[in-house]
């Protein structure tokens, strides 16, 4: 089974015996509740799946694991200049064809009453600007295209 955690792909195949799962010396007991056993100590865990992501709370930490569907091997580029959340474009600081360097501010958008900068993740040339000042954007949409 494959997951993504913070952009990294991880494979895992825990040993399973009925409702008990084992991995790296840790034991997970699965009943109506989840109990994780490490060094003989049991800890309650919480997990819930939302869309393709497992949200896991364990030992005071909250982690998100995206399920990678078997067979799919798309090299989806996480460095895309996408909108981190729904909001409004306040300013576009570049034009199509402009050369930009990693770290340059390309756009400014407003969401949750705060301004957020959209910053170039690598050097390149602006190929397309998908939204203009004043437009509302949804979460996850691509705001600009940047050549490699």
């Amino acid at each position, binding site marked *: *089974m494959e*997951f993504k*955690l913070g952009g990294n792909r*991880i494979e*895992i*195949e*825990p040993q*399973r015996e009925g*409702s008990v*799962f084992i*991995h*790296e010396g*840790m034991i*997970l007991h*699965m009943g109506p509740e*989840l109990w*994780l056993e*490490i060094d003989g100590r049991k800890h309650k*865990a*919480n*997990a*819930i*799946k*939302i869309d393709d992501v*497992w*949200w*896991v*709370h*364990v*030992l*005071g*930490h*909250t*982690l*998100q*694991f995206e*399920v990678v569907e078997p067979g799919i091997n798309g090299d989806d580029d996480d460095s895309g200049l996408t909108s*981190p*959340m*729904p*909001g409004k474009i*306040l300013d576009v600081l570049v034009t199509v064809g402009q050369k930009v360097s990693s770290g340059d501010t390309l756009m*400014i958008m*407003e*969401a*949750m*009453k*705060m*301004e*957020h900068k959209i910053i170039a993740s690598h050097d390149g040339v602006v190929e397309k600007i998908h939204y203009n000042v004043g437009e509302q954007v949804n*979460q996850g949409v691509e705001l600009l295209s940047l050549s490699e």
Partner: protein
Amino acid sequence: MLKRILVANRGEIACRILRACKEAEIESVAIFAANDAGTLFTELADIAIQLEGYGLAETYLNQQQILEIAVEQGCDSIHPGFGFLSERADFAQAVIDSGLIWIGPSPEAIAKMGDKITARIVMKEAGVPVIPGEEVDGGIEQIIAAAPSVGYPLLLKATAGGGGKGMRVVYDEADLETEAKAAMREAFNAFGDDRIYVEKLLTGSRHIEIQILADKSGRTIHLGERECSVQRRHQKVFEESPSVALDSELREAMGEAACAAARAVNYEGAGTVEFLVTPIGEFFFLEMNTRIQVEHPVTEMVTGVDLVREQLRIASGEPMSCGQLSMRGHAIEVRLYAEDPANNFLPAIGKLKRFVSPTGPGIRLDTGVRQGDEVTPDYDPMLAKLIVWAPSRKESLQRMARALDEFVILGCTTNVRFLRELCDHPDVVDGWTTTDMIERLWPEGWNPDMELSISSAGLLIASACESSNYGRIIQHSSGEVGKISPFSTINRRLP
């Protein structure tokens, strides 16, 4: 005695005020925008009225509409909470002109303190020390002209502002113009006023504020301090009372200055005078917040005074009920934000599929949300405040750590783990909290201090759940029946 209060706010602070109304046996009217329908605060009101329109300007900032509802619903008073219209002198005046009671200080006091430049001048006259800076009247040219005499690093602040909006630190002249423009834009969007002034950035200082109460009989008291130095993006995240930096002498001096500040504007109700305190114990007036403050609970827990209920008493003309104060123990508040602290505190959205809060001794939760609620990008990302009290600061930090460990929130990224790590960070434990602390400790940004075994454990759990079809809930309610086929779930089972 007030009979029916309109609460002109939403979320957590609306809940706080509506509960105070219930306890005081005063009827309450909540107003809510369409996208707040069914949220917790609308539940707690006796009457909840939906606002027409979309966006802040047409709803929570729509003075005319709010006043009409107040009159239509037979309210005798309006409580503005914090943010929104709470520091709008024109609104306070309009409320009074409509024959209603404004639960807050006079429009004159709000105006004087709200205009940060006027406030600086009034404070200087009252003998309250202010931060070195220039009281420029806005406009990009004036800011550029004033900057050299203030020197770098400097702080741009919105004249009409508060809450970190329109505030920018400038370390280098090269960034001044860009940052000033951004600050002006943010200020305009937040307050409808783009004036900016310039102050010296006092690095290594503490943000310490004094809570005051003043009633119509002329009594003005201070209720001790709150230290709110731990801030990210100039917004407080961790607040406590008392402050380790104050001895009783400094506390009394600052308390006296705060009362002098309040008296200088004939203040009435609850208010907060903010100071910066330098490492050598000088203190400078920052601003006065002419409203209830987000972090008011820490003062309530240390003094035993119910500040919101006192606001209601004072507004109705009664004297405040608290006599000689008896301060006790130590209280800490953390602000639970829907944000990603590992990604420069970027606000987050999502649905609170699990929201299990800690309980037990010394725990208080002031929340605007509960399990099942959606966190949208429409409003401030503060979800709730967790407050603890214990006999000593050390026990208070231990209790907060315990409480945050118990807090389970799934479905929306929050700063819970960041707050948890603050609780036993040596600088926090030792009390070395300064306003630049987060940048100082994590100049490259914060990342959770996570042992490999934790992510490994998480991975085990995710894979086990995925392969055994654990915890998939399909809800058949009137609106949703048939939308999700159980068969699609079964199909996705892995061998």
